[in-house]
């Protein structure tokens, strides 16, 4: 089993981490989730039938683990909101994730793209990360997300449009929203 782990780790680990980290934006959570990915992978490696490529299979598992994490977070937020009787959803837990070092040292535009990725739906975010940050093909992205090719294209287009809209709005406001938030960190 160690040999399997070594090979998978050497081939895919940094990309897997990158995918999860750009989605959850929290190093500790990403570390927990990637561990869960390996647990599932090692558990089911010998039943993997090779119907999809090993790479897309691994990333599908990472996608499931990450989405499940979000679902559990949503439920938890819901419970907290019910407990405190806060009416507006989305205002419950403030965005207090600290900026990763690698992003903090980048120019303003890159920092804003990182920030506004959150404004995309999780499917749009996954497509943009897989397609442009990890340079995966449309076919690979479709297999990982279990989308049709045309759904990847539509989601990709909508994601880019969304990102552009927020960057434009931010630019028009003189980048205030973002700068204030970054300043708080």
């Amino acid at each position, binding site marked *: 089993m160690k040999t399997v782990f070594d090979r998978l780790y050497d081939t895919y680990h940094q990309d897997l981490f990158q995918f999860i980290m750009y989605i959850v934006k929290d190093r500790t959570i990403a570390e927990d989730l990637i561990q869960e990915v390996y647990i599932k992978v090692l558990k089911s490696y010998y039943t993997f039938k090779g119907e999809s490529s090993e790479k897309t299979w691994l990333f599908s598992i990472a996608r499931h683990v990450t989405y499940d*994490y979000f679902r559990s977070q949503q439920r938890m937020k819901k419970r907290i909101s019910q407990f405190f009787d806060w009416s507006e959803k989305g205002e419950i837990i403030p965005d207090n994730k600290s900026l990763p070092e690698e992003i903090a040292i980048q120019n303003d535009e890159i920092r804003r793209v990182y920030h506004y990725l959150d404004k995309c739906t999780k499917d749009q975010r996954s497509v943009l990360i897989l397609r442009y940050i990890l340079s995966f093909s449309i076919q690979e992205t479709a297999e990982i997300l279990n989308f049709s090719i045309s759904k990847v294209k539509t989601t990709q287009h909508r994601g*880019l449009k969304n990102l552009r809209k927020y960057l434009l709005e931010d630019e028009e406001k003189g980048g205030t929203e973002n700068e204030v938030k970054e300043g708080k960190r």
Partner: protein
Amino acid sequence: MKSRKGNDEKEIIQLLQQMPRLEDRQEKYQIYKQSALEDNMTDLASHDRSKFSRFAPVLATAAAIFIIVLIPFVYNLSDSHFTSEVANDSSGAMEAQDEQLTMIEDENYDALFTAEADKSHAYVLHTVNDDENVIFGAIPDEQGQYLIPITFVVSAKGNLDELYNKLPEYMEEHELADNDFLLQGATYSIDDEKKIVKVQLPQDFSLGEGSVRAYQFEKTLSVMFAPHGITKAVFETADGNTIDLGPFGKMEEMPILPEERASYKLYKERYLVPVPQQPDFPIDEAILEMKEEDTAFHLTNTIPEEINFRITEDEKELVLEYTGKAILENNEKYSVMIDAILMTAKSYGFESVRFDNIKIVRIGNYILEQPIKVPEGVNPYTIGK
């Protein structure tokens, strides 16, 4: 900053491509150790288990082939008269359909679903007899991605506590016990008036650190008790300590959430499994989603590609108007499709489903010219017969 006004998507793509690599700083060995420990991969016993699990798919495949071979004979025997009539000229076929429909309407409609043979092979449970009780369980799939809900039809009366406390027995009877049931060793006491279930967990109970197991634990409780109207689980241990529920922290109680909206798909050709959807995901898209496969997780679509519906709602009834060109046949593929549509509709709170313009009177046990009630449960197993 460069002005983005009038720019197209290219600039955004370039920015995304310039995003830096976010490196994992954990030690490789540390990750392996944690993953292997969590999964008990270092335990020699797991080798024996894995040997068995390698044979299990072979046995399951053999069983599936047997069923697949058998089913056409069963269908042919029961429907040969009807299908041969349809194949003849249209007026003759219409008469045959009318005749068939009249015959079926004359029977007690519910009786179509009460035969024991249906319960032991069906994907859904439609009726529960007066001398039967129903309890629910759930097991994670092989890769821990989905939860497989199970319905146990117990041929005995008794209070729900007693029946739930026999759940391990029932699971064992159907060889489901090995499948990592998350409430292993728990006992239950249901308070019908307060709508709570007291769950006594073993002293060494642990969910580990993973958020997925915690999420599935919460979902398992919902699958088991939400259908009985229970709204809260209260946890207890024999020594009176609070339970450490991993990422949830130490908890004394947990709300039982209502059933999640879901698209039902077929897992390993054996179980109907709900693939959860967001609360605002519309029913027509959830039905469309049932056409998608996810082979990496052994999920097959339940609506064949050639089938299309226009979907509308009529209060608590979901209406599916058939708009596809393919001619539907009375076979297992379409019968499973209806099972899965009914369960999907149920998860959205519908009480019945009506098929319009479907041009076939009967598929499997379903009479399609009248609304079909959503099932009582999914993946039924009969106990005690």
